[in-house]
């Protein structure tokens, strides 16, 4: 198995006819993802290298049976695109777009929870999700991840940062460790999918044997995840928190990555994770080495 997506996931790309949507949509298809449709109200009836374009997500779902959507719409349109996807009938929405206003994020997160409780949103401002060998939705380069192998342990990855997600995938591949699913939840203030959503799914997933969690300074998502791990998780977790040495009060790239008033420091997050039994590395390489040890332990 894998979490949230698998080889049966059929994806409609909102914004397939734009340059980004087209580039990644085709790349995802090349990886093996079932890219079944695109949407663009002005270009309904056309196609992008054989992928049919419909006016709306609802039309695409009706015609193709799409179960997930991937949003490559510019930031001003993301609020409407998320709601269109939910109303259109898909159950999993991946919003890649960065620069979405926080007020929009807070609004559509709550709107989905209330009116579409069975719809899960990933992002916005995230690299997407990949279940190696099965499905890749978003901007992750598929070849840096090793697909699961029967009889060998697989690791689930969840990360707030895009490039660190790639770093994690790559280091695990160098160490010949397979990945069940890798979820980039994004560094925005209100991510549609949280660490806990992923940890819960990994705990329930019979193909995932251990979990790698990459967090960063700011907010309290890692502390909340630590509490969940402590209470609910039986699988080993390895973690790294970016921004260990970030100065207080400076916004470090991501909207969420800021240490304010002594809250949200990496040290506090690492302490909380260690107390929950998590193996914590001081940098991505150290964390990957810790995961190698964990996986070697599982093999015995």
């Amino acid at each position, binding site marked *: 198995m894998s979490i949230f997506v698998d080889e049966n996931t059929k994806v409609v790309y909102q914004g397939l006819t734009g340059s980004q949507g087209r580039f990644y949509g085709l790349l995802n298809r090349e990886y093996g993802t079932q890219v079944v449709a695109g949407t663009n109200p002005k270009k309904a009836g056309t196609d992008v290298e054989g992928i049919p374009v419909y006016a709306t997500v609802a039309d695409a779902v009706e015609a193709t049976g799409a179960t997930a959507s991937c949003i490559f719409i510019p930031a001003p349109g993301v609020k409407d695109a998320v709601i269109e996807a939910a109303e259109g009938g898909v159950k999993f929405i991946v919003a890649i777009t960065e620069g979405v206003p926080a007020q929009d994020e807070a609004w559509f997160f*709550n709107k989905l929870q209330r009116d579409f409780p069975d719809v899960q949103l990933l992002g916005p401002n995230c690299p997407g999700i990949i279940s190696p060998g099965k499905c890749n939705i978003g901007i992750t*380069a598929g070849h840096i991840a090793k697909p699961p192998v029967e009889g060998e342990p697989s690791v689930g990855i969840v*990360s707030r*940062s895009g*490039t660190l997600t790639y770093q994690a995938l*790559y280091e695990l591949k160098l160490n010949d460790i397979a990945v069940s699913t890798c979820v980039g939840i994004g560094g925005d203030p209100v991510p549609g999918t949280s660490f806990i959503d992923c940890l819960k799914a990994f705990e329930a997933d019979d193909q995932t044997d251990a979990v790698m969690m990459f967090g960063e300074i700011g907010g309290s998502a890692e502390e909340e995840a630590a509490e969940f791990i402590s209470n609910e998780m039986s699988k080993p977790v390895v973690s*790294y928190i970016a921004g260990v040495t970030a100065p207080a009060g*400076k*916004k470090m790239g991501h909207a969420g990555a800021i240490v304010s008033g002594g809250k949200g420091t990496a040290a506090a997050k690492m302490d909380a994770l260690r107390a929950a039994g998590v193996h914590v590395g*001081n940098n991505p390489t150290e964390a990957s080495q810790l995961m190698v040890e964990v996986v070697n332990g599982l093999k015995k």
Partner: protein
Amino acid sequence: MDLFEYQGKQFFASFGIPVSAGDAVTTVDDAVAVADRIGYPVVVKAQVQVGGRGKAGGIKLADDADEVRTHAGNILGMDIKGHTVEILWIETASDIAEEYYASFTLDRSAKKHLGMLSAEGGVEIEAVAESNPDAIAKIWVDPVDGLTEAQALEWVAAAKLNPEATEGAVDILQKLYTAYVDGDADLVEINPLIFTPDGRVHALDAKVTLDANSVFRHPDYEQYEATQVRDERETEAFEKGLQYVGLEGSVGVIANGAGLAMSTVDIVNQVGGKPANFLDIGGGANADVMAGALEVITNDPNVRSIFINIFGGITKGEEVANGIVTAMGRVQIDVPIVVRLDGTNAEQGREILEPHLSDKLLMEPTMVAAAERVVALAKN
């Protein structure tokens, strides 16, 4: 984007929130002219984006033009916690019966908007939160529903404001919520929110942080970018469209992606070095972007060595390598550069860099090895 008090008050006023009459000035003569126009007594307030202005002598009451002249002259140019005062806000003085506190921000854990209201305003709210947390009434507002009048009434009652202030407070809080949501703010704060002896509720200060991602809805917000407080290096990087944070050390850091950049800063520190900056070149690491990044970094005289840490996801290794080679031909660089290049097409990238390697351009296979090398070079 952080606003100065005067900008915050103009922002509030545009949503109907009562603020004192006043104007922003940059000279003593203009300060007197504004005071003459709005009527005495007036308050002369230093405009800096840092707390504790009053204690530092940056807020003074003036009863006549001579006092305005004296205070304005003293405060202009004053240093408050490292911020030089270049702008003054002159406003009519208010009679104060009571001082309150009100704010809205996003509670990321609850994923709802958090409103905070306290009858103990005018002081640092963090201190109140520590010494007497019960003095702050909190409300969580669902972004879909918004703040209703009934909720606001209940909230004001819970904060135990003077009952006579209830009507005015409810009105201001609803307008403040509208300003926060429709104005795309990350934070709106009034401290103090005052109750006057004649029964009015009024914003005496304004702290506003706007969401830079919302400029497409508010083209007028571009004006605020120009008044953001940045150091010289940050200004230069901003103009080149780079994500840059100035730090105090001697190792220049260039990475793609905020997470990797933060990680690079971590590793440099962990192997005994001190980063001079945090520079995220984002997704497209072409020659122009790389040259711009190297320019910003080499203009910092503290930089003794440079760490370029790239993980190609969709960004391809050969493009990064070509970018580095081209940039080095274009920008005069006197300090050594250590490159770590991994991910998509990294091998092709390394092949491109190979013939250019020297004691000024070095390559290491891992983040840790590269960090150790670049830190050693910074110490030479």
